[in-house]
């Protein structure tokens, strides 16, 4: 699976907020390989969603570049851009907000098809019904409105809408965060099945670290707009190298009655600094239990510690 689908090169995205500029994405570089599931994890405000949206061209990068199949996304021709938009789709967190309340399920699903394919009305209708069955709904849902559906059903419609364009890549932004545990498992199973059947590539954004471990090939950990560690899932969970990753993973609640995860975890002091006023040096230094003078002066680069395991920390490079 060495074929690279997306390549981000020191990608930056800043947002102006009054006089300050919030560095939502501050120079991240990574690849997404064809057919894999890469997960972005991190706490709220760390830039996960901005990263996905910048990759998909929803946000213009402030600096840096995104290569798609080796082509610079910002320099795609008109025709290529249309293909880019069709092949790369997104699933959103809030199934209540991502569907137009005035459109029936069929209208939502068919909207993209009208733009990208020259199907007849009958073809569109039969495609829609097929898609609804694929995502575990029935053809009867076609004429319903979003308010008649439950959260899990809406999320399925969101997935069907994305699949309507026959994409190769799906960016899933917290697809299960708004759902109940029993419904989460349904949606995750659906996404895994679709990936197997259609050879999809996923960029998964989630703060549910247990689920991420279950579904990902590789995981990237973000903190304040930077990737601090990226590695194969098992390597990362078995042996996290960055202190932030260690703290994050040790804070995962464990559903075992005797576990003392609360006491045994690596504790962090303080909270995430305001992304508008990030201190110099390593972003994580103010909360890091191992921070030294060097960490407060210069930001560590992301370097390969072991095969495929990249970390941005001075301490691990000693």
């Amino acid at each position, binding site marked *: 699976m060495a074929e690279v689908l997306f390549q981000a090169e020191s990608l930056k995205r800043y947002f102006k907020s009054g006089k300050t500029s919030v560095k939502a994405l501050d120079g991240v570089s990574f690849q997404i390989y064809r057919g894999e599931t890469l997960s972005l994890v991190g706490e709220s405000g760390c830039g996960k969603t901005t990263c996905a949206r910048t990759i998909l061209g929803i946000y213009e990068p402030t600096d840096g570049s995104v290569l798609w199949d080796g082509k610079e996304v910002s320099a795609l021709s008109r025709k290529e851009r249309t293909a880019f938009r069709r092949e790369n789709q997104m699933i959103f967190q809030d199934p209540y907000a991502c569907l137009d309340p005035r459109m029936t399920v069929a209208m939502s699903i068919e909207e993209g098809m009208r733009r990208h394919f020259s199907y007849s009305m009958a073809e569109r209708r039969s495609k829609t019904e097929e898609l609804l069955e694929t995502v575990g709904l029935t053809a009867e849902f076609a004429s319903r409105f979003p308010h008649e559906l439950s959260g899990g059903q809406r999320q399925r419609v969101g997935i069907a809408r994305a699949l309507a364009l026959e994409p190769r890549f799906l960016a899933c932004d917290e697809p299960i965060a708004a759902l109940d545990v029993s419904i989460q498992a349904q949606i995750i199973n659906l996404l895994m099945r679709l990936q197997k059947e259609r050879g999809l590539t996923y960029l998964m954004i989630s703060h549910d670290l247990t689920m991420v471990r279950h579904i990902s090939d590789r995981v990237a950990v973000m903190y304040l707009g930077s990737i601090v560690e990226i590695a194969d899932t098992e390597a990362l969970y078995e042996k996290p190298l960055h202190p932030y990753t260690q703290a*994050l993973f040790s804070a995962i609640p464990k559903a075992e009655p005797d576990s003392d995860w609360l006491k045994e975890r690596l504790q962090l002091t303080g909270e995430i600094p305001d992304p508008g006023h990030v201190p110099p040096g390593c972003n994580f230094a103010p909360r890091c239990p191992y921070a030294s003078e060097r960490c407060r002066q210069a930001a560590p680069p992301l370097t390969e510690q072991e095969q495929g395991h990249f970390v941005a920390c001075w301490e691990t490079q000693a």
Partner: protein
Amino acid sequence: MGELLNVKNLSVTFSAYNGEVKAVRGVSFTVYEGETLAMVGESGCGKSVTAKAILRLLERSSATVSSNSVVEFEGKNLLTLSGKELNQIRGNAIGMVFQDAMASLNPTMTIGNQIIETIRSHKKLGKREASKRACELLELVELPEPQALLRRYPHELSGGQRQRVMIAMALSCDPKLLIADEPTTALDVTIQAQILELLQRLQKRLAMSVLLITHDLGIVAGVADGVQVMYGGSLIEKGTAQDIFCSPKHPYTAALLTAIPRRSMERRSDLYALPGTPPDLRLALDCCPFAARCKYAMPICKKQMPEETGETPGHSCRCWLQHPMAPRVALNGGEAGG
């Protein structure tokens, strides 16, 4: 351990435009002194409504608490107290922390004034003394620079800090019972762990009981002494954390536990997903509320609600599978295998 709070047969009905929603259906449980009792369930199962009904915080125009419900706190039935008597208990002997701290704090008042207001409404303290007490409380919940914080407004704090302020307010009158309704749901994992640990430390230090309401089975392990699982407005299983996690008896509890991926599972293998969705609470549901989604459902399950039964003391369950003549099944999840 003595009994602190005794809820008996609590039922709450909401009148909506399209029918009566029976949100809580005859719930009974006991909170003992000094324990942490966790109430777990999915959204809409009635856990928050139960908590609010205990303190009579439900809107009187839409919610009706049935007349045979009893909420006994230190021998007094909270449901029949006068407003004045109730106010002496609310925020005093029973404190409450809500999920969304930003919505629970007054955005136009400083943190200090809000805490002082709470203290002075229950205790005869001068402004200066109350302010000193507020400062102590902020120290108690481990907030840095409490003096400066008293003059700040809620929007100037982070989510974790706001939740700490909420806890400080709830603790302002040394409550015997703290009801925490999803106190960490809106927070990130590292902050969540901090808040849970703080709650645990404070509970020991102040020797209070905690009723922790959450949808996340994960945070319950290692925090709660007792766990009770709610589904469709009824309590379906009660037990110690050990009971619930290691030998769940109700198929729903077992399903909840298997819906979370485990270390022992092969990566990318299918998770056990419960089919269907939770029941419509407008329906009468004289049967087991879980019957429609249960893979072990028998004809009786769809006819009649099972009684609460338990072989081991403290671990009880409402399920027909517990009937002595019911077939023995190995539930998926827990040590029962599956």
